[in-house]
């Protein structure tokens, strides 16, 4: 039970200070995985209320973005005939705009229609008419799968809310594959984030940025090359470090498919992006973004 604010305010100041110094951890199931909110330097009760509000954001986005919900906007998009438009909600329109940007930036290695070539002879085409807040089906059937961007987009929206709630020191985790770090906890250089399995030796102190990883360890060869419709994985794992989680989520997926020279070209045009590749026990990074401090 959460105490009423007047009860909070009346608590022993020392006890309240003690909860402020902890990192409070909250869990929630959404988007077929586990989401986690960690909040530092805040009263536990207030942190819990903020986390609850952030999880509500995730649930709301899932209802809009899931292709497994009969009345989600993504499902409605799938049902558009060529030439038809659908008015989109603000969050979905924003997410699709980012997806389109990432598709262009990654030379098509990230795409919402990665699996469409399994069922259609050519890649379906779509557009977001300016100022209409609609999506138009230009060809084919828009079988969107937001599995490589939706969780990251949710983290970005959760972060907006936590900042609104004046909880800037947070770490958000989506299924272990995407994290979004806010401010560092007090007296810390950043949240300790590793590349790879538990207790990875390759760790960085992150703040106000996002790290995502893609790989074959959990779901096998699940990453299709949207340009061919075939499994296109060139490596076991790839990570991306960017400012936003939607970008890192999408870029890490593209990092599994792009050749190394292609990755170099992609991150060369986006100074805020880093891609990490692993060769046996060694990690290399590609990109101009300043490396975060090692943990």
């Amino acid at each position, binding site marked *: 039970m959460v105490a009423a604010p007047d009860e909070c305010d009346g608590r022993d100041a020392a006890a309240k200070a003690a909860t402020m110094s902890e990192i409070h951890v909250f869990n929630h199931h959404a988007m077929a995985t586990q989401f986690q909110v960690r909040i530092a330097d805040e009263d536990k009760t207030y942190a819990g209320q903020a986390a609850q509000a952030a999880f509500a954001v995730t649930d709301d986005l899932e209802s809009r973005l899931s292709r497994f919900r009969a*009345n989600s906007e993504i499902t409605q998009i799938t049902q558009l005939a060529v030439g038809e438009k659908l008015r989109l909600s*603000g969050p979905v329109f924003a997410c699709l705009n980012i997806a389109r940007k990432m598709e262009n930036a990654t030379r098509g290695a990230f795409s919402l229609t990665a699996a469409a070539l399994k069922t259609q002879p050519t890649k379906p085409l779509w557009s977001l008419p300016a100022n209409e807040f609609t999506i138009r089906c230009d060809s084919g059937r828009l079988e969107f799968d937001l599995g490589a961007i939706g969780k990251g987009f949710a983290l970005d929206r959760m972060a907006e809310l936590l900042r609104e709630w004046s909880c800037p020191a947070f770490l958000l985790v989506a299924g272990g594959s995407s994290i979004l770090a806010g401010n560092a906890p007090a007296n810390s250089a950043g949240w300790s984030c590793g590349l790879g399995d538990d207790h990875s030796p390759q760790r960085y102190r992150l703040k106000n940025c996002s790290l995502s990883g893609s790989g074959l360890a959990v779901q096998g060869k699940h990453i299709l090359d949207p340009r061919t419709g075939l499994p296109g994985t060139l490596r076991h794992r790839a990570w991306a470090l960017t400012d936003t989680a939607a970008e890192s989520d999408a870029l890490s997926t593209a990092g599994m498919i792009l050749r190394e020279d292609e990755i170099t070209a992609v991150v060369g045009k986006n100074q805020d992006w880093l891609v990490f590749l692993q060769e046996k026990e060694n990690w290399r990074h590609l990109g101009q973004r300043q490396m975060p401090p090692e943990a």
Partner: protein
Amino acid sequence: MVTQPINRREFLGTTAAAGAGLLLTSCSPKAIVKKASALSKINIALIGCGAQGQVLLDSLQVIEGIRLAAVVDIWDYNRNSNVRRLKENGFDVTGYHDYEELLAHEKDLQAVVVAVPDFWHAPVTNACLNAGLHVYCEKMMSNTIDGARSMVATMRKTGKLLQIGHQRRSNPRYMFALNRLVRDAQICGRLTAAQAQWNRAKTDDLGWPKHSDIKPEVLAQYGFKDMHQFRNWRWFKGLGGGPLSDLGAHQIDIFNWWFGQTPKSVMASGGLDYYKNHDWYDNAMVIYEYPLAEGVARAFYQVQTTTSAGGGYFEMFMGDEGTIKMSENPGITKLYREDRAKAWDELVAKNYLSASAVERPAGDADKVDVRETAPLLQYDIPVSFNKKIHQPHLENFFNAIRGTAKLNCPADEAFASEYVIHKANEAVAAQKMIAITAQETEA
């Protein structure tokens, strides 16, 4: 058995499920959109931008033929963030502090959608009806029977439309299941019982961002003790009606709608057994007795706010030949046939049902063919629904304003349901069976 498996009202907002495409080929969604967009715009405002207001706002942004002119909320944080987001998404809206300010400034409105806390429903709705506006008001109509009765009286006096937000009444799947399966096909046989539930996991009380508090004098002006009560009004007597009202209202309304009458009695048990700083019961179990023409049917309802166990939220109608378990979540919907009932293959052939496989004909009684074990057939309702769940009910309201539809849940009909929901809370308090006459359920 009728030959038209789905009528126009059931179709609006519906798409065909796999295997049922023949149902809808003469009436494509594109045609519906064209027709709606040709209609003149109805200017509307949303009063109340809280959690339920957000749900309605989602639908209001995609419904054709309306213009959202204003949003209203006494909480600056909520109102301003909604105005900002709406403007970012292309809507030219104005924010107002309360409904009186709205009515004083917006002179071109035809309708309002009301989603303020329950104890404000009657004052806001009555004021808007008296101002000449049509009103869509969220359920419960009011936190008191008298408040709800006053809304029906104002609706009748002004001649304006008053739709109550029992949105399942416009859900094409529910309409299809009731009209085609229960009534036409009598798939359940004689209805003998019903069961419904809504169990939710324990949740903490809602908080609010720092520096977003409403001033104490403003809270007091609008009937709230403090910010905590403002954010968690559903739990407090005098403001809301507790879980039986918040969650049970939808489902107990389905009992009345599907049985076609109100119950003759209610008995209930419940209590405030878990949460320590609420007024209303956090759990309740209720039994209504419906004197149907073919015999008594009893309906059990439970609401829990400390566990999500029990299979989600649903309304199940049970008869001597079959059972339909309905839910807004299609994944929970199930149909069961009793062994004694005749096969449903005819219903499948007529697109009243979809089946997981073709049912094998009975054949000659003196012959049998032997092969692999056959799985039990699974049946489903062949109507899927791809809009937001409140959208058809709102569309029904706007179409009624245009004169092209009849309200699916006018206030006088909703009153009967809401009366027996209030009686359930009363039965919990009284710890005894309460008799209900049909006459007292009329507004």
